[in-house]
């Protein structure tokens, strides 16, 4: 019996196919030549798939997904949006891995977490043009990245916060703890604040991308630190939550608020003077240009050789940082007019 078990175990070990060895690095693209599928004709059944997590998040629906669907309509191709409805990174990975066997014309993947790198690698290895948007995924071999620099968004908030509070006082921040992009934002904020020795950074807090949690955290912070000078927000719901608690505590204007995103709700709070500064992302640009990159790669729109795919050349930009939108009381009306049109 024992001999039999030992034999079966040995067979398993001997037949085991080891995973490929990857040198750990910060490179985002493959060092080997890329191979991908191209086609000369545009077919209406040609499908481009966007995969994200939290697929129902209003920020994603009204910006990323809207632009992606408009792009598909304009180009006359099929567009699909897939992913789990909750913030579920393994769920997003499972979705990517289950879409790969269907070989879509291109994959537009929201860079939600570095953990999705191995799934992106599989898509690239399967020859599917793959663009990551929003946040960079290191060591993923993706063909292109288009999105924001979250460290920079944090730094911008830090510098503006320091100026708003006169370079002194207590500052806190909130967002989703544990998310790579937000942690980069927190770091940017903290490093900008370090330049001002009279500013005391009291900590980062997890609002779980929830307005009620952000409001409760802000109320607790105001109670624990009556001399709190400012709070910086890093997810779409941080700003509205922080603003609600500050208004309820009658501290509008006394506690300075800065946050990310420029939804109509955020803009209105800037107009009311509750939030002093917004750093917005050019989200429509991520998905529109990202999808266009996929299309151009698939159809060899601007060939660099007789056959880019065979030559191992990726004929699209490898990294595009779309920059940030800075909004305060001086320009908020222009954005509110645009939000009204939408």
């Amino acid at each position, binding site marked *: 019996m024992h001999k039999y078990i030992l034999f079966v175990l040995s067979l398993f070990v001997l037949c*085991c*196919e080891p995973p490929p060895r990857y040198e750990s690095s910060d490179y985002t693209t493959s060092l080997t030549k890329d191979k991908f599928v191209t086609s000369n004709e545009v077919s209406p059944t040609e499908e481009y798939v966007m995969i994200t997590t939290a697929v*129902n998040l209003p920020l994603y629906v009204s910006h990323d997904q809207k632009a992606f669907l408009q792009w598909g309509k304009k180009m006359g191709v099929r567009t699909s949006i897939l992913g789990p409805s909750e913030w579920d*990174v*393994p769920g997003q990975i499972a979705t990517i*891995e*289950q879409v*790969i066997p269907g070989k879509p014309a291109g994959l537009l993947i929201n860079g939600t977490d*570095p953990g999705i790198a191995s799934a992106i690698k599989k898509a690239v290895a399967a020859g599917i043009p793959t663009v990551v948007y929003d946040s960079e995924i290191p060591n993923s071999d993706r063909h292109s990245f288009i999105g924001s620099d979250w460290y920079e968004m944090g730094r911008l908030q830090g510098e503006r916060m320091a100026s708003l509070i006169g370079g002194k006082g207590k500052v806190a921040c909130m967002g989703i703890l544990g998310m790579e992009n*937000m942690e980069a934002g927190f770091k940017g904020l903290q490093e900008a604040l370090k330049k001002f020795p009279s500013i005391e950074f009291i900590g980062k807090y997890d609002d779980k991308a929830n307005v009620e949690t952000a409001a409760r955290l802000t109320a607790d912070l105001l109670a624990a630190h009556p001399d709190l000078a400012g709070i910086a927000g890093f997810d779409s719901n941080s700003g509205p939550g922080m603003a609600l608690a500050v208004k309820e505590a009658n501290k509008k204007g006394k506690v300075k608020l800065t946050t990310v995103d420029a939804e109509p709700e955020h803009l209105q709070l800037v107009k009311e003077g509750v939030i002093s500064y917004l750093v917005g992302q050019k989200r429509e640009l991520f998905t529109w240009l990202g999808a266009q990159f996929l299309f151009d790669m698939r159809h060899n729109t601007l060939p660099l050789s007789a056959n880019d795919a065979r030559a191992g050349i990726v004929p699209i930009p490898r990294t595009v940082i779309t920059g940030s939108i800075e909004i305060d009381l001086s320009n908020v009306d222009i954005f509110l007019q645009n939000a009204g049109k939408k």
Partner: protein
Amino acid sequence: MQLKERLQDRVFSLAASILILCIIMTFIFPTQFPTVENFSQLLLNLSIDTIVAVGMMILLISGMFDLSVGSIVAFSGGLAGYLMYYHDVNFIIAILAGLSGSLLIGFVNGWLIAIAGINPMIQTLAMMGIVRGLALMLSGAGIQNFPYNFIYIGQSKLFGLQAPVWYMIFIVLLFSFLVNRTVFFRRYYFIGGNERAAKLSGIQVEKMKIAAFVLSASLAGIAGILLSSRLGAALATSGRGLELRVITAVILGGASLSGGFGKIFGALLGALFMALINNLLIIGRVSGYWQEIILGLVLIVAVGLDQWLIRKMEK
């Protein structure tokens, strides 16, 4: 006895439903569904949930459940990753530390529920938050760049199937044997069916309950290590919502919230059924808006149909 037999038939009815679903999907998506690539991916994606579901099935058989399993998945991978990345600890010791931590969480849950008398829902809900917080402290923004030996555990392949699938098969077979053939595990049916009678018949119910929580947490710990190895990253967000997914799979697989019923193969089939529905929605390009609604409806229809059949039989 008739009621029990009827409920345990769920394994067969679910297996038949899965077979019918596979046939329908093969006809609708002939080029995408019946492929080796798709099936190996499908099995890989359900492996983590199934390993956790085995532990949850044993808990539900004894009339309890554990809401902290999703957090334990994040914690065990996070602790192992933290030790390997920040302290250069050997991968075997790091894995043992992750598993020991999970086991300890299970023991605390079990002791507070069985001995201190805290309600399982309240205790495991509180533990879910505590352990998620610990996972966040350990993993932060995610830990990557693990040693190759650790990656090997979750990313190596055997006969085209990735390692977690084989671990899942081994765990399902092992616990199926134990639950069917050993007196120790059979006692959980008595405890779930009638706890007082089990106590009076000399079964050490408190110790058995602690053991069930330790087992469930240890399996969640194994799942967490495998997930981190498979992803090549320890994520603080891993396992979010897993507890509800697993409870759904186990109930689909024939367990009852009141205890006393269920088979380990039922846990596997429940997870497989849910993974198939999910696969169908992805291949069919059904928007994420609909996925939760459809999965919820499937659960209500499956359990509702079962209850209707039971009532009809009782009449």
